[in-house]
């Protein structure tokens, strides 16, 4: 997997598209802690104005409570982006299926791939990691437990980072799979970062570290020190393919 390095492309200017090309029309909603009134509505308009919006229409002001007003606003954003300048790292995952993956492990690695996964910290949302690891899998795609050439260990919910690393060592794991669902007050960020720090200290950073969850993307995972990040809708076979691909590439040249 390699992050595509930024390179020159012809500029491609884009704006928001509402009713017509480039009109910049967008929708906002927010609540202000004041009773509904003409003044409140004007405050909503100025709120949008302070964000630099033009042609502001306060489409509704609703009484959300005695001292709360809810607003829906439409306005024009004078924002223009050069789309060609936007480059984001994306995981490169080969499109392999169940059979192909097992075949490759057998042929090219010659032993079972060991993965250990958990939903860490105080997070108890196991559905995501279960979808990747458990037999049943996700959306008709079998989980890693079902792969004869994988040994998959699912430690479940609320697993401590230290315990997770210890278990990885014990099992001689190739990859550590971390699931983070709770994002309130940036819980996921802190907790995921801590794991990587601990791994560095314990000399385990050479293992493959994968991070997944509904608010995770490859970009964020990389920033947090992981090898790869997987977001909503990830299928087990993608994860397996990614791991096998990297393991094969990482083998010493001689073995290949």
């Amino acid at each position, binding site marked *: 997997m390699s992050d595509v390095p930024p390179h020159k492309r012809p500029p491609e200017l884009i704006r928001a*598209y*509402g*009713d*017509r*090309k480039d009109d910049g*029309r967008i*929708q906002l*909603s927010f609540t202000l802690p004041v009773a509904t009134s003409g003044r409140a509505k004007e405050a909503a308009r100025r709120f949008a104005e302070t964000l630099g919006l033009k042609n502001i*229409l306060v*489409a*509704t002001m*609703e009484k959300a409570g005695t001292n709360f007003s*809810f607003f*829906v606003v*439409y306005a024009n954003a004078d924002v223009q982006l050069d789309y060609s300048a936007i480059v984001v790292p994306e995981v490169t995952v080969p499109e392999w299926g169940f059979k192909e993956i097992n075949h490759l492990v057998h042929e090219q690695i010659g032993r079972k791939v060991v993965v250990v996964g958990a939903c860490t910290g105080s997070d108890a949302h196991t559905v995501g990691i279960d979808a990747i690891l458990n037999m049943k899998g996700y959306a008709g795609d079998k989980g890693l437990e079902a792969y004869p050439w994988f040994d998959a260990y699912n430690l479940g919910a609320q697993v401590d980072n230290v315990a997770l690393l210890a278990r990885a060592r014990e099992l001689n794991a190739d990859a550590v799979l971390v699931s983070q669902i709770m994002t309130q007050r940036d819980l996921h960020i802190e907790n995921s970062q801590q794991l990587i720090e601990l791994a560095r200290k314990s000399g385990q950073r050479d293992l493959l570290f994968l991070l997944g969850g509904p608010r995770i993307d490859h970009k964020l995972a990389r920033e947090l020190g992981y090898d790869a990040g997987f977001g909503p809708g990830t299928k087990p076979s993608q994860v397996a393919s990614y791991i096998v691909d990297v393991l094969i590439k990482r083998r010493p040249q001689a073995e290949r």
Partner: protein
Amino acid sequence: MHPLPIETAVVDECRALAADISGGVQRFIDAHTTVSIERTVLRAYGVDGADADGVPLVNTCVDRYLAAGGLGHGIAWWLGRALARGAANPQEAAEVLAYGSEVDDGSVGATREELLAALAPYTDAALERLDRARDKRLADRTRLGTGPTPWKYVIVATGNIYDDADQARAAAQAGADIIAVIRSTAQSLIDYVPYGATTEGFGGTWATQENFKIVRQALDDEQERLGRYLMQVNYSSGLCMPEIAYLGAVERLDMLLNDAMYGILFRDINPRRTLCDQYFSRRVIARAGIIINPGEDNYLTTADAVDSAHTVIASQFINEAFAKRAGLPDEQMGLGHAFEIDKSIEDSLLMEIAQAQLVRQIFPRHPIKWMPATKHKSGDIFWSHRVDGLYDLVGVATEQSIELLGMMTESIHTPLLQDRFAAIKGADYVFNAARHLSDEIIWNPEGRVVARARQVLDEARVLLREVQKEGMFSAIARGAFADVKRPENGGRGLGGVVEKSTAYVNPILQALEADHV
């Protein structure tokens, strides 16, 4: 669908009354023609183009013979004579009529037989053009197939036909079955059809032949990609009803908003004028295989949807009767009604269900067009989106055919691209989640839904009896529909109505009437 227990005798009586009511008007229609009918005849003969001021040639022609008092013979009469006199084709003949140094006074020249003979090949060509368009539509539709009903109908209204085409494509990609391009505000009041592609409009885009073509091209292209036939709609009601019907027909439109009542009540168009226009336009539409959408739904934007529900039903019976007289089969009558009851009323949904089910049952083969809440929407887009969700549910549960999707921004602006996307995605969820709901429900015969349906039908019968007694023109004049009063001699366009002379010639109409009497 399990039918509501309503009396078929009442339905039959309503239908008989409507036939009678339309019969009275039909006598007037048969004795008159209008400037727009005559312009349509010219267009059918292939007359095209506009002068430097944008005035279409067909207008110049017809206005000249109207002023000269010759329109009672039909413009074809004069066109035929010009042809017989040596014009190379109808276009040239029309130019002679429009700009020739003299107005033909009929004193010398071709006889009736001669002029008819001169027209004959062009008459055949005109009908062939209609038939070719119809056949092409049918072939595409058969080859690609359409989505399941309710069909998802969305509007685009950017004012710029190229943006419209882009938005139409995006809507189709998101799942829309039908795209309607809304007309620029008040186009219905201008007595000519603008020319060419247009990029500026207000609250809509000008209906022009070129604009029809541009959108159809986009859809033709897109439907191949999507493997699903895409339907196009535009608006014909207004002072140019027959002309737009004709242009829509040759450009393969699938549906046309087409309703004299709409023009009368909501645009203050003269009742005589637009009822004549409607007849001719529907003859064209019948031949072209287009579905019409009358505008009864609009009644409930001015009148109260609870109190006036029966006026919608009564008007639908009348509209059906008019459509039958114009040779339209039931399958082309997309009668309209709407989910317009005040959302704050208890059990409003029950009343909406009653009405939707009633309409479905009374008009079983008709591709009923079901319109969303508009008047009682609010700037609270979340709330509005939820209202549209229940609307969609009633749509699928009562098996409506064509569903104009509600927009969460209805009370704010004509839909943004994202509003349409949300509406389509929302409807897909509801239609799929409730796919067979209509098979499941048997309405409690002692319940509120059944009682409401019966009441509305009864009230419609009472109204139809009254209208039958007083006559259609008088009923419209006293505000029987939509709480709006329109006298027979008031409104726009009466000057364009002309009594047919005994010599009246209109080979196009004659051919169309031969289809189905």
